[in-house]
C-alpha cells in the first residue's frame, strides 16, 4: 500500500477519487439549483401576466386558464404539473385578485440528496371589469 502510494499512481488515484466525491456533487448542485431558479423565474413571469389578465377578465375564467397553459408551455413548463389558484373567482371592480401557481420540482445531487421542492409564485392585480 505504502509503495503503491509512493510511486505516484496511488496518490493520483486517491486525489482523483477525492475530487470526484467533492466536485461532482458541487457541479450537479450548481446545475440543479440554476435550473430550479430558471423554472421559478419563468413561472413567476407567467403568474404576473396571468394576474393582469385575471384583472381584465374580472376573475377565474376559461380564457385565463387557457392563457396560463399556453404561457407555461412557451416557457417550457408542463401545464398539467402546475396548480393554478385564482382568488376570488369573481372579482368586483377595484377588488384585489390573486393568482397563485405551484409546481413540485424534483432535484437530485449525487452522493448528497434527492428531494422535491415546491415552487410557488403569487401576483396580485385589481379587478378592472365594471359589471
Amino acid at each position: 500500500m505504502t509503495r503503491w502510494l509512493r510511486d505516484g499512481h496511488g496518490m493520483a488515484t486517491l486525489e482523483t477519487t477525492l475530487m470526484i466525491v467533492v466536485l461532482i456533487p458541487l457541479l450537479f448542485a450548481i446545475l440543479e439549483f440554476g435550473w430550479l431558479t430558471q423554472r421559478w423565474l419563468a413561472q413567476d413571469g407567467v403568474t404576473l401576466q396571468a394576474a393582469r389578465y385575471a384583472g381584465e377578465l374580472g376573475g377565474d375564467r376559461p380564457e385565463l386558464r387557457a392563457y396560463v397553459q399556453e404561457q407555461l408551455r412557451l416557457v417550457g413548463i408542463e401545464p398539467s404539473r402546475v396548480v393554478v389558484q385564482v382568488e376570488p373567482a369573481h372579482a368586483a371592480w377595484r377588488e384585489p385578485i390573486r393568482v397563485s401557481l405551484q409546481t413540485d420540482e424534483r432535484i437530485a445531487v449525487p452522493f448528497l440528496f434527492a428531494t422535491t421542492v415546491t415552487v410557488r409564485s403569487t401576483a396580485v392585480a385589481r379587478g378592472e371589469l365594471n359589471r
Partner: protein
Amino acid sequence: MTQDEGGTAAVTTIVMLPLLLIVLAGVLELGAVRAVAYRAGAAADLATIVAVNDQDQTELARTGTLRLAADAADTARDYFARNLSATAPALAVSVTEIAASADIASFPSAPSLDQRTGVRYDRPTVRLIASVPVRTPGFAMLFMPTVTMITIRAASSAR
C-alpha cells in the same frame, strides 16, 4: 510524483478548498440577490400598471381623455406592498416599510415632466422608485455588508 509533491498538493488543496467555498457562497448570494431584484422589479411594474389602469371615469365620460384616478399613487403603493410580500423572507425590513418609503409620483395629465428623473411623459403616468434592502448573509464571508440595498424603478403610462 514524489512524496514532497504529494505534500504540496495536499497543502494546495487545504488552502484552495476554503477559498473555493467562499467564492461559491458569494456566487450563490449574488444569484439570490439578482432573483430578488427581478421579483421586486416585477412587483413594481405590476403596481404601476394596476394604478394607471384605473382611470378617472368621470373625466373619461365627460371629455373622452385619459386621466388617472386621484388615488393612483396610493394604489401603486398598496399593490407594490402586496406583490412584494412573496419575497418578504429575503428582505431586511417589512414590505410595508419598503412600500411606505418608496417615492411614488402620479402624473395625472400629459404632457408632464418628472423633476426627479428628468423624464418627460406624453401620457398620464405613475412612476415608482424604491430602495429594497435584501438580506445577504453569504456576503459576510467576503467581508461585505450583510444587507444589500437595491434600487427599483418602474413607470407605466395609460393608453
